[in-house]
Structures are given as C-alpha cells and as structure tokens.
C-alpha cells in the first residue's frame, strides 16, 4: 500500500526517491513505531480480557489470546460468598466520590481567593501549597495511623476501620494539587466579568457560585477525576484503615484474590473484577479525553 497523497511539508531533500521510500521515510516509520508502542500498551489489557473470559479461571490455563470462552468467572464473582465484590465496589465509590466532591469544593474556594483577591501572605501561602502537594499524605502513614487510633478512641465513627476516617485523609490529601490546577484556570477567566457583575450589585459569593464555578466546569471535572482516580488507586492507607473483608475497597479486596494462599481459580475472579472496574475508569477517561491534556499540562506548567 503506497500512499503518496499524504500532504507533505516543504521538500526536505533535493534527491528524488521512489514513492515507497519516501512514504517510509516520511510517514511509514511513524506508523511502525506507533504500532510497536500500541502492542506494548495492549498486551496486559488483552491478557486481562482473555483471563476474565477464561472459564477455567486459573493462571496456568490463561494465555495471551483466549482458547475458550465463558462467563463463569463473572458468575462466580457475583455469587461467591467469600468475595463480596459489589461491597468492595460500593465502598470504593462511597469513599472516593464524596471525598473528591468535598476536596474539589474546598479547593475551588481557596483557588478563588488566590486568583481574585490580593492579601497579605498570599505569595507565601501559594508557595507553601506548591510544597505541600509534593508530600502525598501516605508518607506520614505512621503518624496518620497513630492519629486515627486516637480519634477512634473518642469517636469510633471516624477512627481506624471506618470509611469516614479514610475519607477525611483523602480529602486533605487532594487539596494542594487541585487548588493549583484550579487557580491556573480561574486566572484565565477575565476579571472584567467580575467587575461587571460587581457593578450590577453581585456579592463575592454570587460571583463565585453563579459565575466562576459554572465557567470553570472543565477544570472542575478534571480535578475531580484526578482526585477520584487517585483515591480509587490508593492501597497503602486503605489497607491499614479497612481490614474487615466486607469493608475493604476494590484495591485491597482484589489484592486478596491474588494473594499467595488464595485458591488458584480466584485469578479468574480477579480478572473479571478488574475488567468491570476498568469499564468504569476507561469510560470516565475517554469521555473527558479532550480536557485531560490541557488539564495535565496547564496546571503544572502554566500555573
């Protein structure tokens, strides 16, 4: 397949080459390279799909491409009493969604203050936020464990082995990053809009809730997704906080399925669970794909 109709940039070399060679030098290597990378990208994903639909469900009978097809793993995943998958799924959502909401709301408040007001200590506070976002909460895991042990003595609802306690940690953990992301975006909303609204008699709260927040919907979505995904993927804190089998999050629960002492056939259940979780995260990502690049680069590069 020779393609010569590709739009070309200004001729690079005076020497004339045959059409095929030109295509190979111009575009061909691009396709080749991308396909190689895609193969690398797809191997584990194809493997999970093939493992999830492998009726035997053991590691030894799973190969990259499926040899047989069955929904046995899914059936067992939903019925096996020792594998409360939907509990785990629900727990993960029940922790990650509210934690993302609250932390995004609180971050947007702070971002508004940093973007629209000039006050004493603003610059040091911004620098401090930039510093604190480099320290993920789990680095202080020992201290968090001791703190929540103490909190649990006074308020069992928010101590170790409680969802609320874990949620509180996640809320605090996402603040720094999201505030920076959002401040960068708020800065791009023209201040003239605020001024016009002020002249019309709007209060600062009305400007924030009525104007800034709706205009910032894309960045709120991105920060929310990043906080949500970060929380879903956390293992270290979730494994310390939630130890009852039915209280676990997906990360902790699914890991127990491939632990050393669990039955070999649990691998299939694990793959099926992974696939279901992936459907959720991939859908979210793909629907927001166009915002993601600007969100990732904008926040850190441009502030």
């Amino acid at each position: 397949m020779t393609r010569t109709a590709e739009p070309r940039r200004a001729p690079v070399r005076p020497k004339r080459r045959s059409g095929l060679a030109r295509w190979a030098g111009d575009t061909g290597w691009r396709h080749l390279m991308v396909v190689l990378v895609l193969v690398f990208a797809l191997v584990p994903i194809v493997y999970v799909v093939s493992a999830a639909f492998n009726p035997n469900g053991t590691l030894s009978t799973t190969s990259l491409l499926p040899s047989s097809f069955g929904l046995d793993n899914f059936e067992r995943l939903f019925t096996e009493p020792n594998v409360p998958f939907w509990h785990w799924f629900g727990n993960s959502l029940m922790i990650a969604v509210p934690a993302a909401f609250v932390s995004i709301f609180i971050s947007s408040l702070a971002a508004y203050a940093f973007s629209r007001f000039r006050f004493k200590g603003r610059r040091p506070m911004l620098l401090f936020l930039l510093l604190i976002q480099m320290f993920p909460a789990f680095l202080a895991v020992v201290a968090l464990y001791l703190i929540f042990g103490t909190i649990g003595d006074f308020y069992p609802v928010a101590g170790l082995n409680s969802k609320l306690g874990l949620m509180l940690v996640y809320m605090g953990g996402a603040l720094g990053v999201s505030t920076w992301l959002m401040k960068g975006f708020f800065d791009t909303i023209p201040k003239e809009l605020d001024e016009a609204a002020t002249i019309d008699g709007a209060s600062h709260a009305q400007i924030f809730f009525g104007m800034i927040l709706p205009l910032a919907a894309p960045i709120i979505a991105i920060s929310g997704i990043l906080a949500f995904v970060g929380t879903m993927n956390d293992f270290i804190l979730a494994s310390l906080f939630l130890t009852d089998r039915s209280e676990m999050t997906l990360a902790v629960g699914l890991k127990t399925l491939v632990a050393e002492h669990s039955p070999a056939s649990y691998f299939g259940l694990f793959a099926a669970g992974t696939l279901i979780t992936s459907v959720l995260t991939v859908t979210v990502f793909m629907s927001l794909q166009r915002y993601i690049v600007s969100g990732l680069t904008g926040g850190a590069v441009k502030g």
Partner: protein
Amino acid sequence: MLDQRSQTAGSHTAAGLIAKIAVLAVVTALAVWAALPLIDARAWWGLGAEAAAVAVIFYTYLQRRRIPLKYLVPGTLLLIAFQILPVVLTIGTSFTNYGDGHRVGKDQAIEAIIAAGVQPTPGGNTYLLSVGESASGDLALLLTDTDEGTHWAGTEEGLTALDEVETDQAGRITAAEDYEVWGLAELNERHAEVAELAVPTGEHSGIKVQGLSAFEGTSTRSYDAGCDCITDDEAGIVWHADDETGTFVTEDGDEALVGWRVGIGFDNYLQVLTDEDIRGPFFGVFVWNLAFGAGSVLLTFALGLGAAMALNRPGMRGTKLYRSVMILPYAMPSFAMLLVWAQMFNRDYGVINELLGMNVDWYGQTWAARAMVLIANTWLGFPYMFLISLGALQALPADSLEAAKIDGATGLTAFRKITLPLLLVALTPLLISSFAFNFNNFNAIELLSGGNPINAGDTVGGTDLLITYAFRQAFGSSSADYGFASAISVFIFLIVATISALMFRATRSQEDVYS
C-alpha cells in the same frame, strides 16, 4: 491591599443569609457532639483545639472585612489536620522509641510488669479464653466469666467490658465488636506473645494465660517509688528504671518485657549510620530508590516522547484512533493492572516467560525483579508522558523549527538541537514531579514485587523503596517500630523537599504563576 469589593460585600441576599445560618448551625451541632467524648475523657488539649477551630470558623463567617479568609479557612483547617499535623507528628515520633514493647506510659508499664508476676491464688477467678487483636493491632485476651456470664477484653492496659459478643456453646468468645478473633493457626503461631501478656486488674493483681484458660491472681512483684524499682519477692529479682531507654533492667542488664515510651533523641537516625546491620541495606535501598525514580522517568519519557513525535504529523491517518488506544493504560485502574503484571511475570505460568520463551524467576533474582518493576511501571506511566509531550510539541514555536530547517538542520540534528531543548524547558517541572511521584511509588513496589526478593534474615528486599521499607518496619509481620519508621519517613521528607527546591528553580522562569 484589600479588594475594593470588600466594603460592599456581605450576604445581602436572603438565600445567602439562610445558607450561612444553616452552615453555622451544623458546625455548632457537630462541635457539641464532638465535645462530649472529649469532656468525658477529660482530654482538655483536644477540647482546646476544637474550641479554637470553632472560634476561627465563627469569626471568619460573621465578620465582613476579610473576604479572602472566608474562602481560605475550610481548606486551611483540613490541611492543618490531615497534612501538616501528620508531618509534625512523624517528626516527633522519630525521636522516640515508640513501637512494640514501648507502646504505653511508664505507669502502665509498671502495672504490666507487676501483672506479669501474677501467680494463681487458691479460689481465684478463672475465665474461658479466646485471643484476638484490636483494630489498632493490640493483642487482647477475650475473656468469659462463666460464673457471672460477663465478657471482657484484656490488654496490657487493663480490662474493658464487652457488650456485643458471639460465643460458642461452652461460652468462649468467637466474635466481638472491634476485635478480630484469632483462629487456632494464628494462636499456635503467636503463642509466645500470648503467654507473656499480662492484664493488670489492680495494684497487685492481674490476669494471665494458662493453657486454654486465664486466671486472676496476685503478683509477687511490687513497685517502690523511692528507688524507682520493681522487686520480685519470690524470684529475688530487682528491676531498676532506666529513664533514658524507657525500660526496667536488672543489674545483670536483663530488660523487663514491657517498657515505656520515651524520647531517645537522635538514636533512630544514628542507628542508620552506626548499626552495620542497618547501614548497608539502608544505603542499598536508597541508591536503588533513586535509580528507580530516575529510571522510571527516563523510560516513560523516552517511550512517550517517541510515540508523540511519531504522531505529531499533520494529516497523518489514524492519529485519533492511535491516540485513544495509546492512553488506555492510563485509563485502566493502576492498582489492578499492577496486580495483573505481577501475575504475568509468574515464573511457571506467567505469560511473559511464555511469550519470550524464557524461564526467568522474576521474583527470585534482584536484577530480574528490578527489571520487572521498571517494565510494568513504564507501561503505567508512558501514556502520561505521551500526552504531555504531544501537548508541548504542538505548542512549540513553529518559526524556530522553520529557521532550523532553512539552516539545514533536519532529522536527528533538529531534534537534538532544537526540539528537545525547547521541550525540556516546558516539561522539566513535570518531569521533576514525576520523579518525586515515582520516588515514593509505594503501589508499584508493594503490588508488584512486595519488595522481593527478600533473603532470609534480611530486613530489606532487592526492590524495596524507602517508603515500603518504612511501612514494613511499622506494620510488617515482625514487631512494630514506629519510631524508626518515622525516622525513615523524615528522611524521605528531606529528599522530597530537596526535589521541590529543584522544581522551584526550574519554574522560576515561569514566575508569572504567582502574579
């Protein structure tokens, strides 16, 4: 420099006013609810902190002059409680000997040692015994008083009554709220710990385990505040308190089993420098940790940039599809995919060995394990690099590329001399934060290799990072050492702070962010 708006601002709509009153009412209700247990326990420091937080909230939302405060206070309170306080507490803990054997205060340690000398008294109470662990990992005797039909949990701090329990026919506890009851296997494995546990019940009495039951008796030991020592009359042993190490020691230097928590200065840090069993492995981990962070950034960036360069061609067919598929690894749940990779690297049944026709023991050899974590981590990380590289490539000034072309720079030369330097200016801050992320990539190690290979007798494994090492010191299967684990965390803090300083310098050219 207050904004002009602040003079006229305030909740001048009815809805705003109602919302404000509602929020403050909820805060008040929560404050009262939170104060009760603190008053009960006479925890005045906690009450003080709570009162201060509530006062700040009320002041902020009832005044009209400082508008920015209204937006900053919620975040600040949360940040103090769950980011700053843990860091401060980590630093504090790193100067103590807090950990197994040094969990409690001195008074409680004395009680526990006295209780350990308990001998059965004729006619003393006996209990049916189960053993379990509290949510915070404390060993507990779960006792059934058959005469009175009551249930108790006993730890080295004392007895607490249990309300919600399930028992078997004999009355032995099989499940209790807040405790995880052990099965026979675990009981056998940790029998020694159980046998040593003594539950203080009074000044000279306690409960100890004997076989499958527990008895209450009086102790042959007593504490004398005058000499700050504990005497065992029957065995003729005297333990003197050593306030520096937080232990009771005999004249021969034997330590009593229970000590207490004391500040030990820089000992946890000095240990790393002076103790040969720790020094060697620690520096090994440190070097590998740096290599892992740098290697991950390098590999993901090289692959991501390569793919982005290949796709950065206006008019090339299929780019949209290519791009969607390429970011799939980024969209998959990373914890689960790490576990998938771990299975793919299985020596006997794994798909990697099968595809490549190899028989590598990926977990058993240090370098194979290191290659494994780097490969899997590259897979997870390259789509991110691809996305930011593509974004940066498309934002490159077209005129410098044109100029280079006119000057005759093409292909690799143009890339090396023009494109890459321009890209690096834009991407350096992101690369540095990616390094910081991977430097502490707990998941990548814990879920893939678990730090393996760990040789028998070693405390660290071939792929351990500092954070997984610290985690194991605090929560691993051997005895917990929170003080030492905290010291490692402080060490990580310092490294991250250094990385941040580098990042500040790299972003200095983009100072407009603070404007």
